[in-house]
């Protein structure tokens, strides 16, 4: 196991207990815990630097602006964007996807146009497109999931023709861990002139990301799933598309002039950032990215491969347990969904809770996928840099106990 164990000391919450047991946090796909470096960056901002950005003619406001724009630069560097101006701050992944949906889709789609999705999308990469489809008359089309829990590309040729204007796909499933076929889809989409939107909510935190390699046109991701604060995320976009794209929200800071009946927008990225931005959160996001850079995204990835491999091994020992997701570690991240006999996921989560083990249970905001898998709910354990093998051991002990409580042993 690559040795990230020492990182645990940076996370104050890992020293707390849940229902009397040391917290074993296995819900990082939902939100990650925060290192003290991030928590302090936010507090320090409020204690020493707080002022509104882009507005002030005094030193404090200038320093706040420098810190805010510095965070943007760091995040741009983290995903190897060409320039900080390619990174728009949003409220989170969901907001970032909605921004593309409204700013790009609402203006350009019409009757007869299509939006291509996959069955493994999170609701945040489904519902915005449904809304835009309703407003514009465009149609949604889905790629299915194959037996090995991967996006099924056999129908791609028939599904992806000139009618498709937008392809929206997840870089990594939050339910099955499956890594999305982003590069293949991007190449095929570009061949028919479609624009590719990648939901990077799970991908960016877990895989080294270079937007040049990804091949997408837009990439949405959020801070709170990568050690950062809630309330902040980002949309990366190709500069020429961002130039063309309309802002979704109007307000202060995003204009270069406001007349009574019309306005001119500020340059990219500011035209997309109406109102006072989430300043402290952007700075916290920058601190999170700095933390991840210090750990190294290669190390993050290999730690995750190892602990996921260990988890799959240990779970295979539990009788009557079915895992939904690829077996091949190179095709997946650390979100592991499972079902134990006839025990409902919630009941399983309650038993585990009683042992201090936090797993998620439910539809994971992926109802289309759950219907496809024909399960109403799954339990899900998911990992991040601070998880260790003992966490998996505790999980397995809890599962054994569940089997006892439910009379399966």
């Amino acid at each position, binding site marked *: 196991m690559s040795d990230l164990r020492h990182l645990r000391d940076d996370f104050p919450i890992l020293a707390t207990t849940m229902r009397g047991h040391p917290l074993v946090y296995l819900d990082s796909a939902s939100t990650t815990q925060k290192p003290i470096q991030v928590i302090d960056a936010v507090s320090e901002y409020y204690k020493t630097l707080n002022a509104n950005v882009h507005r002030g003619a005094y030193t404090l406001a200038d320093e706040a602006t420098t810190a805010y724009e510095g965070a943007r630069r760091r995040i741009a560097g983290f995903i190897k964007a060409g320039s900080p101006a390619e990174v728009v701050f949003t409220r989170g992944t969901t907001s970032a996807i909605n921004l593309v949906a409204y700013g790009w889709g609402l203006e350009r789609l019409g009757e007869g146009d299509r939006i291509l999705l996959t069955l493994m999308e999170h609701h945040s990469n489904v519902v915005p497109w449904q809304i835009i489809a309703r407003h514009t008359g465009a149609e949604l089309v889905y790629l299915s999931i194959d037996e090995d829990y991967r996006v099924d590309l056999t129908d791609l040729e028939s599904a992806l023709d000139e009618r498709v204007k937008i392809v929206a796909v997840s870089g990594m499933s939050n339910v099955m861990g499956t890594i999305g076929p982003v590069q293949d889809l991007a190449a095929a989409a570009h061949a028919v002139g479609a624009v590719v939107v990648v939901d990077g909510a799970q991908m960016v935190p877990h895989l080294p990301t270079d937007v040049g390699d990804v091949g997408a046109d837009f990439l949405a991701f959020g801070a709170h799933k990568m050690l950062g604060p809630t309330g902040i995320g980002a949309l990366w976009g190709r500069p020429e598309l961002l130039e063309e794209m309309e802002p979704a929200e109007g307000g202060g800071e995003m204009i270069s002039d406001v007349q009574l009946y019309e306005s001119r927008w500020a340059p990219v990225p500011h035209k997309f950032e109406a109102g006072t931005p989430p300043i402290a959160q952007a700075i916290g996001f920058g601190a999170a990215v700095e933390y991840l850079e210090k750990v190294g995204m290669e190390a993050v990835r290999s730690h995750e491969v190892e602990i996921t491999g260990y988890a799959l091994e240990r779970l295979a020992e539990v009788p009557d347990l079915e895992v939904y997701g690829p077996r091949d570690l190179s095709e997946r991240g650390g979100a592991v969904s499972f079902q134990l006999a*006839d*025990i*409902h*996921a*919630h*009941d399983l989560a*309650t*038993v585990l*809770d*009683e042992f201090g083990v936090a797993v998620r*249970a*439910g*539809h994971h905001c992926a109802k289309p996928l759950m219907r496809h898998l024909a399960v*109403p*709910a799954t339990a899900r354990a998911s990992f991040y840099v601070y998880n260790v093998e003992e966490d998996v051991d505790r999980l397995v002990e809890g599962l054994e*106990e569940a089997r006892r*409580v*439910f*009379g399966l042993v």
Partner: protein
Amino acid sequence: MALDELYREVILDHYRNPRRKGVLEGDHIHAEGQNPSCGDEFSLDLAVEDGKIVDAAIQGIGCSISQASGSMMAEAIVGKALDEVTDLTHNFKLMMSIVDGENPVDPDRPGSVLGDLEALQGVRRFPVRIKCADLPWTTLEDALSQVG
């Protein structure tokens, strides 16, 4: 331990073998409930005659607590007068909200005793799950509100 108090045998039995599962034919009231945060679903058909529940059928997807609660509820309400059912609902929800109290039956509304339903007392130690136990009863309230 608390888990064994929660998952008593009678609850697992109702979960695995829900009573009155299905739908009603003929004249009946229908209501559906959902816990959006966890996805549990519950639907209820009620046949009411002369102020009395004469038949009930349930369907649902969800955890053992919500489904067992629904199954036990369906058993408990058939044959009861509507005001008795209202009191029963009241007392059930009271039980769910009292964590350390002794007697879950409101002395002012003694119309119904909980009987088997008291097996769900263990849920009170698991605040996260109370809404599961409540789901069928909220659906029942919705159905009753449709009665003339």
